[in-house]
């Protein structure tokens, strides 16, 4: 067992670590966020199961099974009601780019913006 580090002064390694992590974050930020094109549908999954996909170009309100209310307006999707205490998904910024995600951790509801419709589950919301 080596002796624990008792030197409490800030070290050069700390700065290097900080710089590396911020660099990685910046690269991820550009590649995941800025380069992502606008999406076309908001796909909702509950508990890992697909619940439905909704056209982002059509203004609509969707009630989700756990009581959440999703609103699509001006090509953006946002959660306006959640039954839980922390309301993190309600305060979430509206999503519109491909890959952007609103997530409700307690109820395992995920809204992800996707680029194209997939066959099979879309008919219900088309009507």
């Amino acid at each position, binding site marked *: 067992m080596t002796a624990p580090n008792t030197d409490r002064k800030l070290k050069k390694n700390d700065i290097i*670590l900080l710089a590396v992590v*911020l660099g990685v974050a910046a690269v991820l930020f550009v590649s995941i*966020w800025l380069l992502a094109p606008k999406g076309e549908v908001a796909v909702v999954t509950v508990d890992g199961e697909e619940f439905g996909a909704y056209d982002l170009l059509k203004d609509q309100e969707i009630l989700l099974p756990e009581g959440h209310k999703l609103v699509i307006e001006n090509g953006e999707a946002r959660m306006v009601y959640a039954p839980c205490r922390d309301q*993190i998904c309600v305060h*979430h910024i509206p999503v519109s780019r491909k*890959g952007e*995600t609103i997530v409700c*951790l307690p109820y395992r509801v995920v809204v992800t913006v996707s680029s194209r419709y997939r066959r099979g589950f879309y008919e219900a919301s088309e009507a």
Partner: protein
Amino acid sequence: MKHPKHKKSPLTKSKNAAKTAALMGVLVAVAFVLSYVEMVLHFSVGIPGVKLGLCHIVTLFALYRIGPKAAIFTCFVRIGLNAWLFGNAMILAYSAAGAILSLAVMLLLYRLPLFSPVGVSLAGGISHNVGQILCAAIMMETAGLVWYLPILLVSGCLSGVLVGLISGWLLRRFEHRHIL
């Protein structure tokens, strides 16, 4: 006949188990109050998982001042209390995933002579957030949560550095004081 008057505590090197128990109680209470304060302040930027993590001041303090076992103990008791009083099973799973990964990383870096408490805390903050994302991605069966990674890396950095600086200051204040 020998009296087991001074039972050795499994958590610390101290020979006084009662003193250790009292100290652990104080540390857990402080950590608990810090997480409660954070919850009441409701510091939120609209991204799940972005937190100050003030309670990790206690974890870091316990790690450097008392030892790894005390850090693990205070951290998990606080998580259990939090989940029991304010959360649910899901919250418990996310917190535990973050805590396990961050404690593992912090214990490892603490042993190496590479980083100061600020660096260790920074690594802990990042790994905590990464652990939570991994756990959420697995439980919700979606890879879409990678989207949160950049912001959670930055927030992990900021809160880690803040917690590290406060803990460093605390450690200096308690340098010559007897706590065990």
